[in-house]
Protein backbone atom coordinates (compact mmCIF):
# COMPACT_ATOMS: atom_id res chain seq x y z
CA UNK A 1 0.00 0.00 0.00
CA UNK A 2 1.42 3.36 -0.99
CA UNK A 3 1.20 6.61 0.90
CA UNK A 4 -0.46 4.92 3.85
CA UNK A 5 -0.73 7.21 6.90
CA UNK A 6 1.15 5.84 9.90
CA UNK A 7 0.75 6.72 13.58
CA UNK A 8 2.74 9.69 14.80
CA UNK A 9 4.22 8.07 17.85
CA UNK A 10 4.41 10.36 20.86
CA UNK A 11 3.35 9.70 24.46
CA UNK A 12 1.75 6.50 23.25
CA UNK A 13 5.10 4.93 22.26
CA UNK A 14 4.74 2.01 24.72
CA UNK A 15 1.35 1.23 23.17
CA UNK A 16 2.82 0.99 19.66
CA UNK A 17 5.90 -0.88 20.83
CA UNK A 18 3.63 -3.47 22.45
CA UNK A 19 1.43 -3.62 19.37
CA UNK A 20 4.42 -4.50 17.22
CA UNK A 21 4.76 -7.57 19.50
CA UNK A 22 1.00 -8.18 19.05
CA UNK A 23 0.27 -7.18 22.63
CA UNK A 24 -2.54 -4.75 23.48
CA UNK A 25 -1.29 -2.62 26.37
CA UNK A 26 -2.65 0.54 28.00
CA UNK A 27 -1.71 2.56 31.07
CA UNK A 28 -2.92 1.22 34.42
CA UNK A 29 -2.67 3.40 37.52
CA UNK A 30 -0.23 2.16 40.17
CA UNK A 31 -2.35 3.72 42.91
CA UNK A 32 -6.00 2.94 42.12
CA UNK A 33 -5.74 0.44 39.27
CA UNK A 34 -7.76 2.53 36.80
CA UNK A 35 -7.04 1.73 33.14
CA UNK A 36 -6.94 4.82 30.96
CA UNK A 37 -6.93 5.77 27.27
CA UNK A 38 -5.92 8.01 25.57
CA UNK A 39 -2.54 8.22 27.29
CA UNK A 40 -2.20 10.69 30.14
CA UNK A 41 0.74 11.73 32.32
CA UNK A 42 -1.47 11.24 35.39
CA UNK A 43 -4.31 8.93 36.34
CA UNK A 44 -7.59 10.47 35.25
CA UNK A 45 -9.21 9.14 38.45
CA UNK A 46 -6.65 9.95 41.17
CA UNK A 47 -3.92 12.00 39.44
CA UNK A 48 -1.18 9.58 40.49
CA UNK A 49 1.75 9.45 38.10
CA UNK A 50 2.82 5.87 38.80
CA UNK A 51 1.56 3.45 36.21
CA UNK A 52 2.47 0.48 34.11
CA UNK A 53 1.51 -0.49 30.58
CA UNK A 54 -0.66 -3.49 31.39
CA UNK A 55 -1.65 -6.07 28.80
CA UNK A 56 -5.43 -6.05 28.32
CA UNK A 57 -7.81 -8.85 27.40
CA UNK A 58 -8.39 -7.32 23.96
CA UNK A 59 -12.09 -8.04 24.34
CA UNK A 60 -14.87 -5.48 24.12
CA UNK A 61 -18.15 -4.43 22.55
CA UNK A 62 -18.91 -2.07 19.68
CA UNK A 63 -20.15 1.24 21.15
CA UNK A 64 -20.62 3.16 17.90
CA UNK A 65 -19.28 3.01 14.35
CA UNK A 66 -19.12 4.75 11.00
CA UNK A 67 -18.67 3.63 7.40
CA UNK A 68 -16.52 5.76 5.12
CA UNK A 69 -17.90 6.09 1.59
CA UNK A 70 -15.81 9.03 0.45
CA UNK A 71 -12.08 8.62 -0.21
CA UNK A 72 -10.17 10.90 2.13
CA UNK A 73 -6.87 9.01 2.00
CA UNK A 74 -5.37 7.69 -1.23
CA UNK A 75 -4.28 4.51 0.52
CA UNK A 76 -7.90 3.64 1.31
CA UNK A 77 -9.28 4.28 -2.18
CA UNK A 78 -9.76 0.58 -2.87
CA UNK A 79 -11.27 -0.08 0.56
CA UNK A 80 -14.42 2.10 0.48
CA UNK A 81 -16.85 1.51 1.98
CA UNK A 82 -14.83 0.65 5.09
CA UNK A 83 -15.78 0.90 8.75
CA UNK A 84 -14.18 2.37 11.85
CA UNK A 85 -15.70 1.46 15.20
CA UNK A 86 -15.39 2.68 18.76
CA UNK A 87 -14.99 -0.41 20.91
CA UNK A 88 -15.65 -0.27 24.66
CA UNK A 89 -13.05 -2.55 26.17
CA UNK A 90 -13.74 -4.90 29.09
CA UNK A 91 -11.27 -2.87 31.16
CA UNK A 92 -13.23 0.35 30.53
CA UNK A 93 -11.47 2.55 27.95
CA UNK A 94 -12.84 2.98 24.43
CA UNK A 95 -10.56 2.33 21.46
CA UNK A 96 -11.24 3.36 17.86
CA UNK A 97 -10.34 0.87 15.11
CA UNK A 98 -11.87 -1.05 12.21
CA UNK A 99 -13.81 -4.27 12.79
CA UNK A 100 -12.96 -6.90 10.19
CA UNK A 101 -16.47 -7.89 9.17
CA UNK A 102 -19.16 -7.01 6.67
CA UNK A 103 -20.24 -3.40 7.34
CA UNK A 104 -23.88 -4.48 7.44
CA UNK A 105 -23.16 -6.94 10.24
CA UNK A 106 -22.05 -4.25 12.70
CA UNK A 107 -24.32 -3.52 15.63
CA UNK A 108 -24.15 -1.80 18.98
CA UNK A 109 -23.04 -4.25 21.65
CA UNK A 110 -21.36 -6.57 19.12
CA UNK A 111 -18.66 -8.58 20.95
CA UNK A 112 -15.22 -8.27 19.36
CA UNK A 113 -11.61 -9.06 20.16
CA UNK A 114 -8.35 -7.54 19.07
CA UNK A 115 -6.19 -8.74 16.19
CA UNK A 116 -3.05 -7.18 14.73
CA UNK A 117 -2.15 -6.22 11.18
CA UNK A 118 1.56 -5.88 10.46
CA UNK A 119 1.87 -2.76 8.31
CA UNK A 120 5.62 -2.08 8.43
CA UNK A 121 8.56 -3.63 10.30
CA UNK A 122 7.89 -1.20 13.16
CA UNK A 123 4.11 -0.72 13.07
CA UNK A 124 1.37 -3.24 13.69
CA UNK A 125 -2.16 -1.87 13.89
CA UNK A 126 -4.63 -3.20 16.44
CA UNK A 127 -7.96 -3.98 14.82
CA UNK A 128 -10.96 -6.04 15.91
CA UNK A 129 -12.77 -9.12 14.69
CA UNK A 130 -16.17 -10.44 15.73
CA UNK A 131 -15.91 -12.88 18.60
Amino acid at each position, binding site marked *: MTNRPLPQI*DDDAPFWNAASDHEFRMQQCGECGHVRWPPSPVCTECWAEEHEWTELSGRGEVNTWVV*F*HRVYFDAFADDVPYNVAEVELEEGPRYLAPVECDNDDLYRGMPVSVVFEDVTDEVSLPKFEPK
Partner: protein
Amino acid sequence: MSYDQNPVLIGAGTTAEFGVFPDRTILGLAAEALKDALDDAGLDRHELDGLVTNMGSPLSRHYDRICEALDLDIEFSAQYWAHGRWASSCVQHAAMAVEAGLADYVAVGLGLKFNAVSQFGGNERASLSEIGSISEHSERPWYGMTAPVGGNALATRYYMEKYGATSEDLAHISKTFRDHAALHPRSHFADPITIEEHQESQYIVDPLRLYDCAPLTDGGAYVIVTTAENAESLPNEPAHIAGMEGLSAGRNNHLFARPGMGIRTQEEYEYDASVTDPIYERAGVTRDDIDALFTYDAFTPNVWYALERWGFCDPGTAFEFARDGNIGLDGELPMNTHGGLLSNGHITAWNHFVEMYDQLRGKAGDRQLDGADTMQYATPFGDSIILRTRP
Protein backbone atom coordinates in the same frame (compact mmCIF):
# COMPACT_ATOMS: atom_id res chain seq x y z
CA MET B 1 -26.66 40.91 35.99
CA SER B 2 -25.28 42.95 33.13
CA TYR B 3 -21.78 43.83 32.12
CA ASP B 4 -20.63 47.23 33.39
CA GLN B 5 -19.75 48.68 30.00
CA ASN B 6 -22.67 47.03 28.18
CA PRO B 7 -20.74 45.54 25.26
CA VAL B 8 -22.77 45.68 22.05
CA LEU B 9 -22.68 44.81 18.37
CA ILE B 10 -22.91 48.02 16.38
CA GLY B 11 -22.22 46.90 12.82
CA ALA B 12 -22.10 43.86 10.61
CA GLY B 13 -20.89 43.22 7.10
CA THR B 14 -20.13 40.47 4.65
CA THR B 15 -18.83 39.91 1.16
CA ALA B 16 -21.52 40.46 -1.49
CA GLU B 17 -21.55 36.72 -2.16
CA PHE B 18 -20.73 33.45 -0.44
CA GLY B 19 -19.56 30.68 -2.76
CA VAL B 20 -16.47 29.29 -4.44
CA PHE B 21 -14.12 31.95 -5.75
CA PRO B 22 -10.91 30.46 -7.14
CA ASP B 23 -9.81 33.81 -8.57
CA ARG B 24 -10.20 35.82 -5.38
CA THR B 25 -7.70 36.24 -2.55
CA ILE B 26 -8.38 35.80 1.15
CA LEU B 27 -7.19 39.34 1.81
CA GLY B 28 -9.54 40.64 -0.86
CA LEU B 29 -12.49 38.86 0.75
CA ALA B 30 -11.47 40.19 4.18
CA ALA B 31 -11.21 43.74 2.85
CA GLU B 32 -14.63 43.62 1.21
CA ALA B 33 -16.34 42.24 4.32
CA LEU B 34 -14.59 44.60 6.74
CA LYS B 35 -15.39 47.63 4.60
CA ASP B 36 -19.04 46.56 4.56
CA ALA B 37 -19.07 46.19 8.35
CA LEU B 38 -17.37 49.53 9.02
CA ASP B 39 -19.69 51.32 6.59
CA ASP B 40 -22.64 49.74 8.35
CA ALA B 41 -21.35 50.86 11.74
CA GLY B 42 -20.60 54.39 10.53
CA LEU B 43 -16.93 54.04 11.43
CA ASP B 44 -13.74 54.97 9.65
CA ARG B 45 -11.00 52.34 9.57
CA HIS B 46 -8.73 54.68 11.53
CA GLU B 47 -11.20 54.55 14.43
CA LEU B 48 -10.86 50.77 14.61
CA ASP B 49 -8.44 49.82 17.40
CA GLY B 50 -9.20 46.14 17.94
CA LEU B 51 -9.21 43.00 15.79
CA VAL B 52 -10.10 39.46 16.83
CA THR B 53 -10.24 36.48 14.49
CA ASN B 54 -10.93 32.78 14.87
CA MET B 55 -8.29 31.61 12.43
CA GLY B 56 -5.21 32.58 10.46
CA SER B 57 -3.46 30.76 7.62
CA PRO B 58 -4.05 28.63 5.66
CA LEU B 59 -7.84 29.06 5.54
CA SER B 60 -7.68 32.74 6.46
CA ARG B 61 -4.75 35.12 7.07
CA HIS B 62 -2.99 35.91 10.32
CA TYR B 63 -4.07 39.09 12.13
CA ASP B 64 -0.80 40.93 11.46
CA ARG B 65 -0.92 40.34 7.72
CA ILE B 66 -4.55 41.52 7.67
CA CYS B 67 -3.62 44.72 9.50
CA GLU B 68 -0.62 45.37 7.28
CA ALA B 69 -2.50 44.73 4.05
CA LEU B 70 -5.63 46.69 5.00
CA ASP B 71 -3.69 49.50 6.67
CA LEU B 72 -5.25 49.06 10.09
CA ASP B 73 -3.61 50.47 13.20
CA ILE B 74 -4.67 48.01 15.88
CA GLU B 75 -3.81 48.18 19.59
CA PHE B 76 -5.69 45.10 20.71
CA SER B 77 -5.57 41.94 18.64
CA ALA B 78 -6.23 38.29 19.33
CA GLN B 79 -6.23 35.26 17.10
CA TYR B 80 -7.59 31.85 17.87
CA TRP B 81 -6.62 28.47 16.48
CA ALA B 82 -7.21 27.30 12.92
CA HIS B 83 -10.76 26.10 13.53
CA GLY B 84 -14.21 27.46 12.92
CA ARG B 85 -15.50 26.68 16.35
CA TRP B 86 -14.13 29.84 17.99
CA ALA B 87 -16.57 32.42 16.62
CA SER B 88 -18.41 33.15 19.85
CA SER B 89 -15.16 32.97 21.83
CA CYS B 90 -13.90 35.77 19.58
CA VAL B 91 -16.98 37.90 20.20
CA GLN B 92 -16.59 37.22 23.92
CA HIS B 93 -12.91 38.21 23.74
CA ALA B 94 -13.87 41.47 22.03
CA ALA B 95 -16.60 42.11 24.60
CA MET B 96 -14.10 41.56 27.41
CA ALA B 97 -11.64 43.91 25.70
CA VAL B 98 -14.11 46.78 25.50
CA GLU B 99 -15.33 45.96 29.02
CA ALA B 100 -11.74 46.20 30.28
CA GLY B 101 -10.98 49.36 28.32
CA LEU B 102 -8.37 47.73 26.09
CA ALA B 103 -10.12 48.88 22.92
CA ASP B 104 -13.06 51.01 21.80
CA TYR B 105 -14.05 49.47 18.48
CA VAL B 106 -13.16 45.84 17.77
CA ALA B 107 -13.71 44.14 14.41
CA VAL B 108 -14.39 40.44 14.86
CA GLY B 109 -14.48 37.98 11.97
CA LEU B 110 -12.44 37.02 8.93
CA GLY B 111 -12.01 36.60 5.21
CA LEU B 112 -12.03 32.89 4.44
CA LYS B 113 -11.25 30.50 1.60
CA PHE B 114 -12.14 26.98 2.65
CA ASN B 115 -11.45 26.00 -0.95
CA ALA B 116 -7.81 26.96 -0.53
CA VAL B 117 -7.49 23.46 0.90
CA SER B 118 -8.11 20.95 -1.86
CA GLN B 119 -9.74 18.25 0.22
CA PHE B 120 -10.48 18.88 3.84
CA GLY B 121 -9.36 16.07 6.09
CA GLY B 122 -7.35 13.93 3.68
CA ASN B 123 -3.75 13.08 3.09
CA GLU B 124 -2.52 16.65 3.17
CA ARG B 125 -3.77 16.92 6.73
CA ALA B 126 -2.47 13.61 7.94
CA SER B 127 0.94 15.16 8.43
CA LEU B 128 -0.28 18.14 10.43
CA SER B 129 0.94 17.96 13.99
CA GLU B 130 -2.57 18.54 15.36
CA ILE B 131 -3.42 15.12 14.01
CA GLY B 132 -1.18 13.49 16.55
CA SER B 133 -1.90 10.09 17.93
CA ILE B 134 -5.24 11.08 19.41
CA SER B 135 -7.13 14.21 18.45
CA GLU B 136 -10.35 15.78 19.55
CA HIS B 137 -12.23 15.01 16.35
CA SER B 138 -11.24 11.33 16.68
CA GLU B 139 -8.78 11.45 13.78
CA ARG B 140 -7.06 8.14 13.12
CA PRO B 141 -5.49 8.53 9.67
CA TRP B 142 -3.87 5.08 9.89
CA TYR B 143 -7.36 3.56 10.06
CA GLY B 144 -8.69 5.85 7.31
CA MET B 145 -10.51 7.94 9.91
CA THR B 146 -10.50 11.64 9.26
CA ALA B 147 -11.99 14.75 10.74
CA PRO B 148 -14.26 16.39 11.47
CA VAL B 149 -16.98 14.50 9.60
CA GLY B 150 -15.79 11.15 11.00
CA GLY B 151 -16.05 12.23 14.62
CA ASN B 152 -19.45 13.75 14.00
CA ALA B 153 -20.68 10.57 12.33
CA LEU B 154 -19.55 8.49 15.32
CA ALA B 155 -21.72 10.58 17.62
CA THR B 156 -24.60 10.55 15.15
CA ARG B 157 -24.64 6.74 14.94
CA TYR B 158 -24.56 6.55 18.72
CA TYR B 159 -27.49 8.97 19.01
CA MET B 160 -29.50 7.12 16.34
CA GLU B 161 -28.92 3.72 17.92
CA LYS B 162 -29.77 4.97 21.39
CA TYR B 163 -32.86 7.03 20.63
CA GLY B 164 -34.20 5.62 17.37
CA ALA B 165 -33.50 8.68 15.23
CA THR B 166 -32.98 8.17 11.49
CA SER B 167 -31.31 9.73 8.49
CA GLU B 168 -34.74 10.91 7.36
CA ASP B 169 -35.03 12.91 10.56
CA LEU B 170 -31.83 14.69 9.54
CA ALA B 171 -33.28 15.37 6.10
CA HIS B 172 -35.87 17.68 7.64
CA ILE B 173 -33.06 19.80 9.10
CA SER B 174 -31.28 20.04 5.73
CA LYS B 175 -34.51 20.96 3.99
CA THR B 176 -35.53 23.57 6.58
CA PHE B 177 -32.20 25.38 6.48
CA ARG B 178 -32.16 25.26 2.68
CA ASP B 179 -35.59 26.90 2.70
CA HIS B 180 -34.22 29.64 4.95
CA ALA B 181 -31.20 30.14 2.70
CA ALA B 182 -33.49 30.59 -0.30
CA LEU B 183 -34.73 33.79 1.40
CA HIS B 184 -31.20 35.18 1.79
CA PRO B 185 -29.67 36.97 -1.22
CA ARG B 186 -26.07 35.99 -0.41
CA SER B 187 -26.53 32.26 0.16
CA HIS B 188 -24.02 29.76 -1.18
CA PHE B 189 -26.85 27.27 -1.80
CA ALA B 190 -30.39 28.61 -2.31
CA ASP B 191 -32.13 25.93 -4.39
CA PRO B 192 -34.70 24.00 -2.36
CA ILE B 193 -34.13 20.32 -1.67
CA THR B 194 -36.66 17.63 -0.84
CA ILE B 195 -36.57 14.93 1.80
CA GLU B 196 -36.23 12.40 -1.03
CA GLU B 197 -33.22 14.21 -2.52
CA HIS B 198 -31.57 14.14 0.87
CA GLN B 199 -32.32 10.43 1.23
CA GLU B 200 -30.96 9.68 -2.22
CA SER B 201 -27.78 11.74 -1.75
CA GLN B 202 -24.58 9.79 -1.33
CA TYR B 203 -23.18 8.84 2.03
CA ILE B 204 -20.02 10.76 2.91
CA VAL B 205 -19.47 8.91 6.17
CA ASP B 206 -22.47 6.73 6.96
CA PRO B 207 -24.75 7.80 8.72
CA LEU B 208 -24.01 11.27 7.28
CA ARG B 209 -24.98 12.02 3.69
CA LEU B 210 -23.91 14.82 1.38
CA TYR B 211 -26.73 17.13 2.50
CA ASP B 212 -25.83 16.57 6.16
CA CYS B 213 -22.48 18.30 5.65
CA ALA B 214 -21.87 22.02 5.28
CA PRO B 215 -20.14 23.07 2.06
CA LEU B 216 -16.64 24.51 1.92
CA THR B 217 -17.42 28.18 1.35
CA ASP B 218 -15.31 31.19 0.40
CA GLY B 219 -16.36 34.60 1.69
CA GLY B 220 -15.96 36.99 4.56
CA ALA B 221 -17.91 38.48 7.45
CA TYR B 222 -17.22 40.83 10.35
CA VAL B 223 -19.16 42.30 13.23
CA ILE B 224 -18.08 45.38 15.19
CA VAL B 225 -18.09 45.27 19.01
CA THR B 226 -18.03 48.38 21.17
CA THR B 227 -19.61 49.74 24.38
CA ALA B 228 -23.19 50.99 24.66
CA GLU B 229 -21.81 54.45 25.43
CA ASN B 230 -19.67 54.54 22.29
CA ALA B 231 -22.62 53.29 20.29
CA GLU B 232 -24.74 56.29 21.23
CA SER B 233 -22.95 58.49 18.70
CA LEU B 234 -23.26 55.93 15.88
CA PRO B 235 -26.21 55.54 13.49
CA ASN B 236 -27.28 51.93 14.21
CA GLU B 237 -29.34 50.60 17.06
CA PRO B 238 -27.01 48.29 19.00
CA ALA B 239 -27.52 44.63 19.89
CA HIS B 240 -26.59 44.12 23.52
CA ILE B 241 -24.39 41.21 24.52
CA ALA B 242 -26.58 40.24 27.46
CA GLY B 243 -25.05 36.89 28.39
CA MET B 244 -22.01 34.81 27.55
CA GLU B 245 -20.88 31.24 28.20
CA GLY B 246 -17.39 29.98 27.37
CA LEU B 247 -16.28 26.96 25.38
CA SER B 248 -16.26 23.76 27.45
CA ALA B 249 -13.51 21.14 27.52
CA GLY B 250 -12.63 18.02 29.45
CA ARG B 251 -13.22 14.29 29.43
CA ASN B 252 -17.00 14.63 29.54
CA ASN B 253 -16.99 16.98 26.58
CA HIS B 254 -16.98 15.96 22.95
CA LEU B 255 -17.18 18.40 20.08
CA PHE B 256 -20.12 16.59 18.55
CA ALA B 257 -22.03 15.09 21.44
CA ARG B 258 -23.71 16.66 24.40
CA PRO B 259 -22.32 15.65 27.80
CA GLY B 260 -23.54 12.31 29.14
CA MET B 261 -23.88 10.60 25.79
CA GLY B 262 -21.06 8.14 26.40
CA ILE B 263 -18.71 8.26 23.47
CA ARG B 264 -14.91 8.69 23.43
CA THR B 265 -13.96 9.59 27.03
CA GLN B 266 -17.46 10.72 28.02
CA GLU B 267 -19.26 9.02 30.87
CA GLU B 268 -22.77 7.87 30.10
CA TYR B 269 -25.18 9.55 32.47
CA GLU B 270 -28.58 11.23 32.61
CA TYR B 271 -27.79 14.69 31.30
CA ASP B 272 -29.46 17.58 33.13
CA ALA B 273 -29.59 20.77 31.05
CA SER B 274 -30.02 22.96 34.13
CA VAL B 275 -26.20 23.14 34.10
CA THR B 276 -26.70 25.72 31.33
CA ASP B 277 -29.03 27.92 33.41
CA PRO B 278 -26.33 30.48 34.30
CA ILE B 279 -26.24 32.13 30.87
CA TYR B 280 -30.00 32.74 31.01
CA GLU B 281 -29.66 34.12 34.52
CA ARG B 282 -26.85 36.44 33.42
CA ALA B 283 -28.92 37.66 30.48
CA GLY B 284 -32.05 38.04 32.62
CA VAL B 285 -34.13 35.82 30.34
CA THR B 286 -35.59 32.33 30.28
CA ARG B 287 -35.40 29.82 27.45
CA ASP B 288 -38.97 30.80 26.52
CA ASP B 289 -37.71 34.32 25.73
CA ILE B 290 -35.36 33.07 23.00
CA ASP B 291 -36.91 34.11 19.68
CA ALA B 292 -34.43 32.19 17.54
CA LEU B 293 -31.56 29.82 18.22
CA PHE B 294 -28.40 29.72 16.12
CA THR B 295 -25.98 26.83 16.18
CA TYR B 296 -22.77 25.72 14.50
CA ASP B 297 -24.39 23.44 11.94
CA ALA B 298 -21.31 22.11 10.20
CA PHE B 299 -23.34 18.88 10.22
CA THR B 300 -27.11 18.46 10.62
CA PRO B 301 -26.98 16.43 13.89
CA ASN B 302 -25.39 19.44 15.64
CA VAL B 303 -28.94 20.76 15.79
CA TRP B 304 -29.94 17.79 17.98
CA TYR B 305 -26.95 18.17 20.27
CA ALA B 306 -27.44 21.93 20.68
CA LEU B 307 -31.19 21.65 21.41
CA GLU B 308 -30.53 19.05 24.11
CA ARG B 309 -27.40 20.57 25.58
CA TRP B 310 -29.09 23.94 26.10
CA GLY B 311 -32.30 22.52 27.51
CA PHE B 312 -34.74 23.24 24.69
CA CYS B 313 -35.39 19.51 24.39
CA ASP B 314 -34.98 16.61 26.80
CA PRO B 315 -32.22 14.12 25.96
CA GLY B 316 -33.30 11.90 23.08
CA THR B 317 -36.18 14.10 21.91
CA ALA B 318 -34.53 16.79 19.76
CA PHE B 319 -34.73 14.66 16.62
CA GLU B 320 -38.52 14.67 16.83
CA PHE B 321 -38.65 18.39 17.66
CA ALA B 322 -36.47 19.28 14.67
CA ARG B 323 -38.31 16.87 12.38
CA ASP B 324 -41.78 18.15 13.23
CA GLY B 325 -41.47 21.68 11.90
CA ASN B 326 -40.42 23.42 15.10
CA ILE B 327 -37.16 24.93 13.81
CA GLY B 328 -38.63 26.62 10.72
CA LEU B 329 -39.41 30.34 10.49
CA ASP B 330 -42.99 29.66 11.64
CA GLY B 331 -41.96 27.09 14.22
CA GLU B 332 -41.81 27.15 17.98
CA LEU B 333 -38.07 27.86 17.96
CA PRO B 334 -36.73 29.04 14.59
CA MET B 335 -33.10 28.04 14.08
CA ASN B 336 -30.42 29.38 11.72
CA THR B 337 -32.89 31.66 9.98
CA HIS B 338 -30.30 32.57 7.30
CA GLY B 339 -29.73 28.93 6.33
CA GLY B 340 -26.75 28.31 8.57
CA LEU B 341 -23.42 26.85 7.60
CA LEU B 342 -25.30 24.14 5.73
CA SER B 343 -26.80 26.43 3.07
CA ASN B 344 -26.19 30.14 3.67
CA GLY B 345 -22.47 29.34 3.72
CA HIS B 346 -19.71 27.93 5.87
CA ILE B 347 -18.37 31.27 7.07
CA THR B 348 -17.49 29.60 10.40
CA ALA B 349 -20.57 31.15 12.08
CA TRP B 350 -19.73 34.80 11.38
CA ASN B 351 -22.77 34.80 9.13
CA HIS B 352 -24.77 33.58 12.15
CA PHE B 353 -23.77 36.67 14.12
CA VAL B 354 -24.55 38.93 11.16
CA GLU B 355 -27.99 37.33 10.88
CA MET B 356 -28.74 37.62 14.60
CA TYR B 357 -27.90 41.32 14.47
CA ASP B 358 -30.00 41.78 11.33
CA GLN B 359 -32.95 40.00 12.96
CA LEU B 360 -32.70 42.20 16.05
CA ARG B 361 -32.75 45.43 14.04
CA GLY B 362 -35.45 44.31 11.63
CA LYS B 363 -33.17 44.00 8.60
CA ALA B 364 -33.62 40.28 7.88
CA GLY B 365 -35.82 40.84 4.82
CA ASP B 366 -38.14 37.97 3.92
CA ARG B 367 -36.72 35.99 6.83
CA GLN B 368 -37.64 38.60 9.42
CA LEU B 369 -39.23 37.19 12.58
CA ASP B 370 -41.99 39.35 14.02
CA GLY B 371 -41.04 41.14 17.21
CA ALA B 372 -37.75 39.33 17.66
CA ASP B 373 -35.80 40.90 20.51
CA THR B 374 -33.70 38.04 21.92
CA MET B 375 -31.34 35.77 19.95
CA GLN B 376 -29.10 32.98 21.22
CA TYR B 377 -26.02 31.47 19.63
CA ALA B 378 -25.29 28.13 21.33
CA THR B 379 -23.21 25.20 20.12
CA PRO B 380 -22.85 21.52 20.96
CA PHE B 381 -19.36 22.48 22.20
CA GLY B 382 -20.83 24.46 25.12
CA ASP B 383 -20.22 28.09 24.13
CA SER B 384 -23.01 30.63 23.79
CA ILE B 385 -23.93 34.30 23.49
CA ILE B 386 -27.32 35.89 24.06
CA LEU B 387 -28.01 39.11 22.15
CA ARG B 388 -30.87 41.44 22.99
CA THR B 389 -32.27 44.72 21.70
CA ARG B 390 -31.94 46.15 25.21
CA PRO B 391 -29.49 45.55 28.07
